[in-house]
Structures are given as structure tokens and as C-alpha cells.
């Protein structure tokens, strides 16, 4: 049992190491030019030289991502609560939320850039990333709020509960597992949104990782691109791990999904 678990843990990193060794060997053996595919050792060197400056850019991207996620969360949960209170409002507004979701973000990036001013790329990126991230939170929370036990709602009414009490003591806790599923998706989407939006709108004043990757690409600094990409992956993993841990902690004692 324990041996099996250790093996399961070791398997992915062992495979990664194997791949890196093969990669190093293949680049040398086939004499691949470094501007096509640099060897892992060259990427390691690039990390040592460009790492610190890229790390600053990564922090900037992380900041944008978290801000976008926070606005998406407030917007998504807030709208979901309004929708559940008023069917009319839901019918009137939900289609527009869908339109916002299905319209490719790259296509509205130039418009948003013009609206916020071309020298405020960070604002444009924040807005675009928020738009990308908010829909899964909205739709999951609406679903969750509507999934509350009908009989429990009846019981709340029997004891004269106010709308506020029904919302905070019944609907929101019922929605929590759904909300957390949406949050995990939205966390990843906020990062993707921040990166895509920076590619699309970030020329000039952008400070994030995406812009630095594009810049390194233009200068054929391929090793530096790989360092940037690795940092983006690390950010994505970090965000996902954080929300997974949070979900497990919130649902551990009562929800079936949190069973090992």
C-alpha cells in the first residue's frame, strides 16, 4: 500500500526527468539550433540570468489574475443571488451574460483598450480577464442556489424565516459545492484571460509575463520564452492547488465530493 503510494507520487517527476534527459540528448545529437529548441541546460541558464526580471513580470500577472478573479467572484455571486431573487431579472439579463461568455475575448480586446485609454493596458487586461472568469461562477452559483432542498425551504417558511435567513442559512450553504466547482474553473480562466488579454491589448504599457514572452519571441530568445512559459504553468498549478485545498477544507465534513 505505502510502496504503491510512494510509487504513484514518484511516477510523474521521474517521467519528467527522463523527458529532460532525452531532450538534452536529442538537442545535442541532432544539433538543433537554439532558436528552434534550446536544450534544458540552456533554459536553466536563461532562468539564472533572466529569472529575476521575469519573476517581477510573473508577480504582475499573478496580481492581475487575482484581481480579475476577485471581481469575477463578486460579480458572479452577486448576479447569481439577484437572479434567484427575481426570475424576471434572470430572464432579462442571463442571455447577455451568455453573449459575454461566447464572444471570443480577443475580438473585444481592441474595443476595451480604446474605452479605457490605450495607455492603460493594465485596466483593459483586468476587465477582459474578469469577463472570461466570471461566467462559470455565475452559472454554477445559480445552479447551486436553485438546488436547495425544496422541503428545507418549506421548513424555513414554516418557521417564518425571512428572505435573508433563507439566503444565508440555506441557499448559500447549499450552493457552496457548486460554487467551489465554479471557483476552480474561474481561477484557471482568470489566468488564461490575463495572459490572452495582455497578448491582445498589452502592447506598450503592459507589465505582465505574457508581454515578456511575446517580446522574447520577437527577439528569438527562445530559452527565455521557455522560462516564462514554465512560470505561467507554475502560476496555474499554484492557483488550482490553492482552490482545491480550500474546497477540500470547506466541504470535508459534509459533502460526498470531498470523500477521499
Amino acid at each position, binding site marked *: 500500500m505505502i510502496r504503491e503510494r510512494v510509487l504513484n507520487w514518484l511516477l510523474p517527476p521521474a517521467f519528467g526527468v527522463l523527458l529532460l534527459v532525452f531532450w538534452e540528448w536529442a538537442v545535442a545529437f541532432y544539433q538543433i539550433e537554439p532558436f528552434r529548441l534550446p536544450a534544458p541546460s540552456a533554459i536553466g541558464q536563461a532562468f539564472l540570468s533572466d529569472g529575476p526580471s521575469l519573476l517581477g513580470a510573473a508577480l504582475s500577472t499573478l496580481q492581475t489574475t487575482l484581481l480579475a478573479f476577485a471581481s469575477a467572484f463578486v460579480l458572479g455571486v452577486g448576479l447569481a443571488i439577484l437572479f434567484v431573487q427575481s426570475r424576471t431579472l434572470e430572464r432579462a439579463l442571463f442571455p447577455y451574460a451568455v453573449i459575454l461568455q461566447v464572444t471570443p475575448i480577443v475580438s473585444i480586446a481592441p474595443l476595451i483598450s480604446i474605452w479605457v485609454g490605450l495607455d492603460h493596458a493594465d485596466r483593459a487586461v483586468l476587465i477582459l480577464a474578469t469577463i472570461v472568469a466570471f461566467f462559470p461562477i455565475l452559472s454554477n452559483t445559480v445552479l447551486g442556489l436553485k438546488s436547495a432542498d425544496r422541503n*428545507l425551504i*418549506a421548513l424555513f417558511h*414554516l418557521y417564518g424565516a425571512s428572505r435573508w435567513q433563507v439566503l444565508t442559512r440555506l441557499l448559500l450553504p447549499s450552493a457552496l459545492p457548486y460554487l467551489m466547482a465554479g471557483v476552480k474553473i474561474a481561477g484557471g480562466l482568470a489566468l488564461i484571460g490575463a495572459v490572452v488579454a495582455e497578448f491582445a491589448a498589452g502592447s506598450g504599457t503592459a507589465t505582465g509575463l505574457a508581454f515578456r514572452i511575446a517580446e522574447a519571441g520577437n527577439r528569438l530568445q527562445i530559452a527565455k520564452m521557455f522560462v516564462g512559459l514554465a512560470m505561467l504553468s507554475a502560476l496555474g498549478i499554484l492557483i488550482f492547488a490553492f482552490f482545491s485545498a480550500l474546497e477540500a477544507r470547506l466541504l470535508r465534513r459534509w459533502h460526498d465530493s470531498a470523500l477521499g
Partner: protein
Amino acid sequence: MGGEPLITIENAGKRFVTGVEALGPASLTVPRGAFLSLVGPSGCGKSTLLRLIAGLDTPTSGHLHWHGQRPRLGFVFQEPTLMPWATVEKNARLGLELLGTPEAQIRETVAGTLDLVGLSQFAKAYPRELSGGMRMRVSIARALAVDPQVLLMDEPFAALDEFTRERLNDELLMLWARRGLTVIFVTHSVYESVYLSTAIAVFTARPGRVSEVVAVDAPQPRGKAFRQSARYHTLCEEVSQALRSASGLEELGE
């Protein structure tokens, strides 16, 4: 059916917005302190009538009339209907908290009620950590905690095994006698209704009307001896017969 009337149901009918006639016109008088069972074929509107009595729905025809002030109600559903994110104790507190009871009183009442249903050691457990019978006890504790005068129960033991069901039947009878409750109890089981009730209202098939009220005059407290008595079996046969004729099954030679 002796005793002063508690609630009178006069030609109450319920038609859903879909046009389905769920209930009646059904008429029934429930005496104070009765243990009244509602039996009838599936879909006859027994549960609908219970919801009307609870005030969770309004009749589309006829009306319900409480004699005196509307009493405080407890409601127990077929499923335990607990909040899975809350401990046993927090579930049992729900009614009192929503009614705005002072904290000290809630604590005392809930501790007493959990003790009554034998769940004191499980106060901090979550519903998923309990067996089906224990969850149902929590549900009953939650209903009893508000100190109801009337307990409405919608097939509360239908999903439980025979052994657990019989034990909860006895516990319920004890509570009913000790607290002077009026219980209105929906069930599918003729045997259960005869064992528990002072009176049994037999419903016709949908839309359900009350076709007959059978008085069960066996003395309390009841126990194993009553379950094995000739009187019990005669009463069960009588109620089954009433149910068959109400469902229109007689001519099938059943």
C-alpha cells in the same frame, strides 16, 4: 371521534397550476390530542392535505379552520431533510433559531430534545455520519424542539427497515402520550396506522376524498402484545377493507 375539535377541513381541494387535481374536496375534523393517520392509495393527496394544514400551500377550493389560535406546528418529512453542512445539534436548533428564541433557552431545549431521542452523544456529528434511523431521529428532534402542539408527519418511517420502524413507532407513541401532542400522520402502511392511531382517515383514489374514518379504540400504551392481539388483526382487516372499497378495487375480487 371524541375530544374537542382542533382543526376542521371543509371541502378542501387543491388543483395544481398544471391542472392536476391533487386533492379532494376533502372534509375532516381532527380532535385535539388525537393520533390521526391518513391512509390511501398513492397520489391521493394525503401529503398535499398535510401541506395545506401546515400552511405551506393554500387550497384552491374550500377552506381549513383552526379552532382557537393556530397552534405551533412541527413537520417531519419522508426524508430526514437535514442540512448536510450542519451538525446534529445545529440541525435541531434550526426551528428555535428562526423563531428568534433566546440563546440560553435554545441550548437547554435542544440538549433536552436530543436526549429524548437518544442522540446526546452525537450532537457534534454530521448527518452523513449517522444511520438512516438516527437521521430520522434528528428530524423528529428538530420538529419537537419548537415545542409544537401539533406534529405533522409525512410518511416519516417509510424508508426505514422494519426493525427501526417499529422502534421509532414506539418512541413516537411515547412522545405523543407524554407531551399531549396532536399527531397527523401520513402513511402507506395499514399495519403502522392501526398500531399508532386513535383514528384513521381513509382516502379515495385521486383526487382524494375522505371516504371513511375508522376509530381505533384499543387502549394505550400499546406494545408487542397489541401487535399480536386478535383485535389488532381485526382492525387491520377493517382498514384494509375500507381502503379497498375506497380505491374501487373491490370488484377485482381482491
